[in-house]
């Protein structure tokens, strides 16, 4: 099976602070992976290293078989193929929803206005917000913003989607609509890596759960094992804390 993400011995430091301490991590095509762990464990940094929003200190990252450290590797092309959804949505505040969805299509993929519009419409329909396509981000609720952000990433026809705590900034009643969209994507066969605190998503949508703590992957496996019957003491402790048992 093709590995869409293949990471070997990844280290990342911010100054003296070592955040990732030797990560080996790979993702198969079509796989849905949830990355869980306490805050400060390096989950988000791992995700941000995958599409090079953070430069790794050492180690190897291959996306679709391309080594991102290779000088010949065009990182902008790689990023265009790796969809990213942020905790704080990061919609372009000065552009309408439609323009949010079309700008990179036109500037990066060189699609015509017509084609970009059509794809934007399709993706807004997919996230259930077609009626908001001419709205501006500041008129949307948090859940709507995040669904637009997902539609924006999808409009680039990505090979995989990275979610960096997509529901953490949302009011509790808005979490469900975002998770529903993510679930739909998973069912359609999209490759997904989600850093999340949503145990429901980790348990019932993902194929694999990765537990990180203190810059290393402590435990990983099917959710039925990692979440139900964790082997490592740190995993047990974290799950007890988060599930409130």
């Amino acid at each position, binding site marked *: 099976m093709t590995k869409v993400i293949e990471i070997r011995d990844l280290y990342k430091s911010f100054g003296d602070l070592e955040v990732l301490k030797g990560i080996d991590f790979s993702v198969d095509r079509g796989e849905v992976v949830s990355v869980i762990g306490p805050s400060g464990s390096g989950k988000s940094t791992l995700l941000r290293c995958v599409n090079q929003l953070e430069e790794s200190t050492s180690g190897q990252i291959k996306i679709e078989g391309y080594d991102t450290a290779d000088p010949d590797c065009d990182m902008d092309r790689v*990023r*265009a193929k790796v969809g990213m959804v942020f905790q704080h949505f990061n919609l372009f505040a*000065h552009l309408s929803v439609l323009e949010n969805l079309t*700008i990179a299509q036109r500037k990066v*993929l060189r699609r015509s206005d017509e084609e970009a519009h059509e794809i934007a419409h399709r993706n807004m329909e997919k996230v259930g917000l077609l009626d908001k396509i001419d709205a501006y981000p500041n008129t949307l609720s948090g859940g709507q913003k995040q669904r637009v952000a997902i539609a924006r990433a999808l409009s680039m026809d990505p090979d995989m989607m990275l979610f960096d705590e997509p529901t953490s900034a949302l009011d509790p009643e808005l979490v469900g609509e975002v998770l529903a969209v993510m679930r739909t994507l998973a069912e359609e066969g999209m490759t997904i890596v989600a850093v999340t605190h949503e145990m429901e998503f980790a348990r019932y949508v993902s194929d694999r759960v990765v537990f990180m703590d203190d810059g290393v992957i402590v435990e990983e496996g099917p959710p039925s094992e990692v979440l139900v019957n964790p082997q490592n003491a740190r995993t047990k402790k974290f799950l007890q804390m988060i599930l409130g048992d």
Partner: protein
Amino acid sequence: MFAGGIAKARRERATRITTYVVVSAAALALLISTDWPRVFDKLLNPEIAAAQFPEILTIAARNTLIFTALGFAGGFVIALTMALARISSVKAYRVFAGWYIEIFRGLPLLLTIILIGQGLPLAIPVFRGIPIFWRGVIALAVVTGAYMAETIRAGIEAVPPGQMEAGRSLGMTRAQTMGFIILPQAIRVIIPPLTNEFVLLIKDTSLISVLGVTVATKELTRWGRDGVIEFANATPLVVAGIIYLALTIPLTFVARRMEGGKGR
């Protein structure tokens, strides 16, 4: 322990009344001793004021606005370049822009105008080919560019870093994200302070008058000053001043309104 409040209030009141009396008396004495017909004649002579028109508008005010517009346009280009250099990942650019900004904000504008208008042509003969009008414009652009660079940089830095990350994550290059995402948002933030820079520049064009000018390139201050000498009367300068105010006060008002309206 806290007694004596009434006595203190009474003392303060007495001091206040004394001050009023002294100031009023001085003002009255000044009013009476002033030769009012002379003051009006020398500052607001209607005939001399009328004689300024229409040229003070069609030549002088026009030149002031042309100097301002060209200086502002050139300054904006310089400022944008310097602001981007200042946040560049290339250290040499950052250092260069930093020095440029420090130097031209640190020098008196008048010195820079004389340096560029008269000094450089002496040192570099090629500059003699540039008409004095354009030397003035260059000097204004160079200096206002240094000030505006910091304004623009602040505007860029006011845009949340997540906007750059979102742009990059969609595959846009740094330059594309800067041009299509960051700058359009930064411009909205910096329009009020840039309007203030524009008002400052309207006034600063008056310093161009130290360079030799022809009748056709006189701006408001030079026009007023030459009028003072010609008529032995300050009315032309007062009229020029009123025209400055007619330009600057509304613009300042607009800038303040925009600042107040931010965040709506």
